[in-house]
């Protein structure tokens, strides 16, 4: 793909450049809808399209009033805080249980490994509406429906597959002779775990945790059913807004969420690089 050879025919050139244009268009399709939200969120009017003032780059056309609304209106602030109260606890549960289980699953002799794996990954595959329906029925019966812990448990269950997948992926590449070397050098099992194994699988654990966090932080369907008004989260508020009367504050909220995604993405990329460097997969 890197450039055309000097002997390329005209047909090849035309094809090559049109292919690049097609790819550019697809990238545009991927990224533009997200980026366009950002300027729209600074609209001085309550419109969802660019006003003539905005197109003329007139400062009058822009304002931060939707952000002011987002950060002061309890309709948005309460859900934001609910989300921030639910996601970290759910993430902690997923990561703690998921990491232990992933270590167990990577042992050489695990009975029914495939079946267990299939069960643990299933929350990612089963349609959310089905999980939500089942949880609604079951949690009502055991008194968890409409409670904080009900939502936390449900979200933790949804985050588990990501932790399992990322941590087992790190463990697959884990060289057993490293733990043997540690034992040989005199380290007991506990020290070997914390000094050798843990630091090496940490990138996997952290990225699994980020996935679990974003899963909970973005989740609407399950919380709609398992939660009650007291657990209204940010995505829930956005969903209600989108379904009922849409207010431009939603664009400000979306922009805030995009910034969070960018931060997470960068963190993940840094972790990936670091982990590859540790495993010597790419130099430098």
């Amino acid at each position, binding site marked *: *793909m*890197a450039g055309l050879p000097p002997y390329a025919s005209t047909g*090849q050139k035309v094809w090559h450049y049109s*292919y690049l244009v097609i*790819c550019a268009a697809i990238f545009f399709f*991927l*990224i533009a*809808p*997200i980026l*366009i939200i950002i300027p*729209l969120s600074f609209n001085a009017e309550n419109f*969802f*399209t660019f006003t003539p003032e905005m197109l003329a780059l007139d400062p009058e056309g822009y304002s931060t009033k939707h952000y002011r609304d987002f950060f002061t209106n309890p309709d948005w602030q309460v859900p934001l805080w609910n989300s921030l109260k639910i996601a970290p606890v759910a993430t902690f549960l997923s990561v703690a*249980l998921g990491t*232990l*289980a992933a*270590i167990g699953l990577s042992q050489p*002799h695990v*009975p029914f490994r495939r079946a*267990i*794996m299939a*069960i*643990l*990954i*299933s*929350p990612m*595959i*089963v*349609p*959310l*509406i*089905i999980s939500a*329906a*089942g949880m609604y*029925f079951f*949690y009502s019966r055991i008194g968890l429906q409409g409670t904080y812990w009900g939502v936390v*448990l449900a979200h933790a*269950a949804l985050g*588990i597959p*990501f932790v399992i997948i*990322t941590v*087992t992926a790190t463990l*697959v590449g884990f060289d057993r002779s490293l733990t043997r070397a540690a034992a040989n050098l005199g380290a007991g099992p506990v020290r070997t775990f914390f000094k050798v194994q843990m630091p090496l699988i940490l990138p996997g654990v952290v*990225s699994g945790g980020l*996935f679990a966090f*974003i899963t909970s*932080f*973005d989740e609407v*369907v399950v919380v*709609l059913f398992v939660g009650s008004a007291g657990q209204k989260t940010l*995505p829930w508020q956005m969903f209600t807004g*989108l*379904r009922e009367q849409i207010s431009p504050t*939603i*664009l400000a909220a979306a922009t805030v*969420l*995009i910034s969070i995604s*960018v931060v997470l*993405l960068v963190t993940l*990329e840094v972790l990936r690089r670091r982990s590859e460097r540790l495993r010597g997969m790419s130099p430098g």
Partner: protein
Amino acid sequence: MTDSATTPPSQPMAVLPGGEVTENGPMLAADGRPLKHSLNRALRREKLRAFLLISPLLVFILVAFVAPIAEMLFRSVENQIVSETLPRTVAALREDQNLPEAAPGEPVYEALYTDLFIAAEYKSHTRLGSRLNYESTGLSSLFRGTGRDVGRFDTDIYTDQFVEAAPALEDPVAWSNWMADDEIREALPFTADAWDAWVTLTVEANEDDPLEEDVEDFVYTALYRDFANGASPSGFPDVDVSNFESVSIKALFEESDEDWVDPDVWQVIKTYSPNYTDGYFLNSVDMMNGPGGEAEWRPESEQIYLKLFWRTMWMSMAITFSCILLGYPIAFLLSTLPLRTANVLMILVLLPFWTSLLVRTSAWKVLLQQQGVINDTLVWLGLVDDLNRLQLINNATGTVIAMTHILLPFMILPLYSVMKTIPPSYMRAAKSMGANDWTAFWRVWFPLSVPGIGAGSILAFILSIGYYITPEIVGGTSGVFISNRIAYHISSSLNWGLAAALGTILLALVLTLYWVYDRIVGIDNVKLGG
């Protein structure tokens, strides 16, 4: 040092003093037990350790996730409500011979009287009414109406006549003594049953002491039934009921609502009286239990679910196909570019992947509106007339566009991870043998990338057919999926059994695909991110 250090290999293995080694015969461990045994024990210990590490999570998932799913499966066939609310009626209906031609006989109505009286006290008759209303409209109001009337039925004539004949029959304490006597209970089965029900009801629902309350009419009605059947237990006031003024319970029901003598109504009650039913599943595929009890199609106007399943499938296929169409060129580009450039461009794929679903859906809602950015641009470019703006949202188009955008990263990532493993030397080899660009691509590269297409397609399709949020917001009525209907039945129509049955069918579909995916790709090969 001498050569005697070696053991000539031809010498057969000796049986050592401990009895440990034999070339043939079971190998023994140091403690004399078969080696296989102690190895198995060691293996079991290892398995146990692995299992101990896994079990907290497994228990958690079983409770927090699998049990709810199981509950949903159970709900799709569960139907205890009729037999729980109307236990006596269900039992009496079993004996009845009149159905389906005519309304059932008096004993069924007598049983219904007791059941409904109790249900009305617990207020559970309205729930039963709405449950049966899914099967035949009108039953909800029937139960609600008669539930109000049943306390005022003219059965007090029995009470009055019994009390007049034997004043002791007015005393709840005396009643409770009689009803503690097994012989009397045996002789007066309906009475004993009604008495027990009344005691429970008084204690549980009204939180009163039965020994201080007036015994309810339905107990005397039951007593009349027993006596009319010829019972005369010893130790119980002997009353001659042959001259009693009597009243037909059936007539009382008919008076309350004449639907009660409609055999069709009773047929519905009878069909749904077993504890488990296939009714919800039949409903999910636009069928129902007919009057004769066999499954039949619903009327044309009520057939919606098969169409909805079908729409969900083909729209998911359309979405998957557009994902392949848009994802393949991108994955190809990324996998042939130098790693550094590819990593930068990869961010353009990963940013949408990491961006909140709600944000992306909001974006499309805003962009696709008739007064939205896309229509504005098209009008500005003169491609579309201002009065004739495109309808891009609240229909299938909206759903397909938005969902393609949302699922595209799930197609690109597996495609890319497969394509990255195809060595560039293959294409070069093909070209060195004289293939042109297209042949080299089509005959060498493309077949090698097919596993990626398979993995990406199944993933996108699985995720797509279960989607709820995006169709709900941009799909209007013509662009919604089966998930949206399930949600509607849970939160609006409250027909949970039907929601569960629809969910079970959807789940079966998804799990089949999941199984196929596991076969082809392996679940532990799922890759997340770059």
